[in-house]
């Protein structure tokens, strides 16, 4: 089975129905991806497959043959916004016990610059945290994402809290 994991081609001898999560952790030694629930409820095992967030506990490895897989270990190299997000989680208390954090970061990596709090909540709705609650996580994501290109040009700070609000502000 040929996989492209964090930019590197790997040839692995694994059963086609093995969980991508197990292949990453056990065959590739990439233990940054965590197993929480094993049933798609918690999002701790979130990775990107061709840029799309998925629960790796629910993906048979055969279905991602030839796809580009990015785990938390490769996020900084693959996603422009990942390093800033990781730093923001440290600075703003978005991480406590840390089990949910890799999944949170991977989901947050899919967000575009200047998105609203509602958009952040929607993107992270499939990631559960049992320590911090979600406020500090949302604040970390807001701080880690770059402001929207339009607002950056005008030099205004990014204060949009809702979709409606952000539209009004841009007008």
């Amino acid at each position, binding site marked *: 089975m040929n996989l492209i994991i964090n930019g590197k081609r790997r040839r692995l001898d*694994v*059963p*086609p*129905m*093995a*969980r991508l999560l*197990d292949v990453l952790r056990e065959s590739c030694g990439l233990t940054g991806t965590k197993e929480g629930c*094993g*049933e*798609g*409820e918690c*999002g701790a095992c*979130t990775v990107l497959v061709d840029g*799309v*967030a*998925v*629960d790796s*506990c*629910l*993906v*048979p490895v*055969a*279905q991602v043959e030839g796809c580009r897989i990015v785990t938390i270990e490769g996020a900084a190299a693959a996603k422009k916004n990942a390093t800033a997000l990781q730093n923001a989680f440290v600075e703003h208390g978005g991480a406590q016990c840390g089990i949910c954090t890799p999944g949170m970061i991977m*989901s947050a990596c*899919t967000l575009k610059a200047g998105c609203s709090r509602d958009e952040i909540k*929607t*993107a*992270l*709705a*499939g*990631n*559960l945290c049992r320590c911090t609650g979600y406020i500090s996580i949302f604040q970390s994501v807001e701080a880690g994402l770059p402001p929207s290109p339009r607002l950056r040009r005008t030099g205004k700070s990014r204060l949009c809290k809702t979709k409606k609000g952000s539209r009004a502000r841009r007008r």
Partner: protein
Amino acid sequence: MPVDARALALQRPRSLKAALAMLATAPALTPIAGCTDVMVGLHFGTSDQRQFIDLWPLDELRGITLDKPEGLSPRLRIGALTTYTEIIASPIIRKRVPRLVAAAREVGGAQIQNRGTLGGNIANASPAGDTLPVLAAADARIVLRSAGGERRVSFSEFYTGYRTSVRQPDELITAIEIPAIEGRQWWRKVGTRRAQAISKVMMAGVRGPQVRIALGSVGPVVVLATGAAKVLAHGGSVADAQAALAREITPIDDVRSAGEYRQQVAANLLAQFWKETE
């Protein structure tokens, strides 16, 4: 105990035709797509399936189109492998069946929406499937295909009992067809939270020249509440419709909710549907 992946076999046909040929000779194969249900069953050891056929690469089963059959009104055709994310992003579905978009938004979270498919939601045949009441209320038809040919089944005739349907082992769900819907559409899911929750009760309704009401998680299959709909369509009171509804649903006590609670909530949803679609 998780099932050992080495004990599982996977066929990977390159085309729909090849898949149907495989199913014709080996009907014990279980079709898989986004796997958001199948992998859970295998991991928790509740699934006895060991041989699978992977539909995920078959792009023939994707796509959202507006078909205009001659002499008939246009109908929406949604490929079976269409994901919830694709449903949410589709301008045609937003315009014609906005409640299907609403239901797709409340399936799991982004990760599940990126992988779970409409065909899979139907084939999995759970009475709690989030899109199913919407499809029932919309009078959808399910397109089934085998190596021998194609047939269409009305949604209300598709399920035969708890997790069973008229789909034969050699057939695949290839698409879902939704006719033009006249009237106001309504949908609501009641669960523990907005994301990542399986419903306690769901209701979808259409209020137009015809009234159609469908409920999820209140019986072994999705229930089309024809009795309650008839009362309301003929100008009966909401209380009478609620009484009719109570006779049509058979909710049980389980880990997510209690039968009595579900009865009460179903009655409340009926009143809310009727009030909000005035």
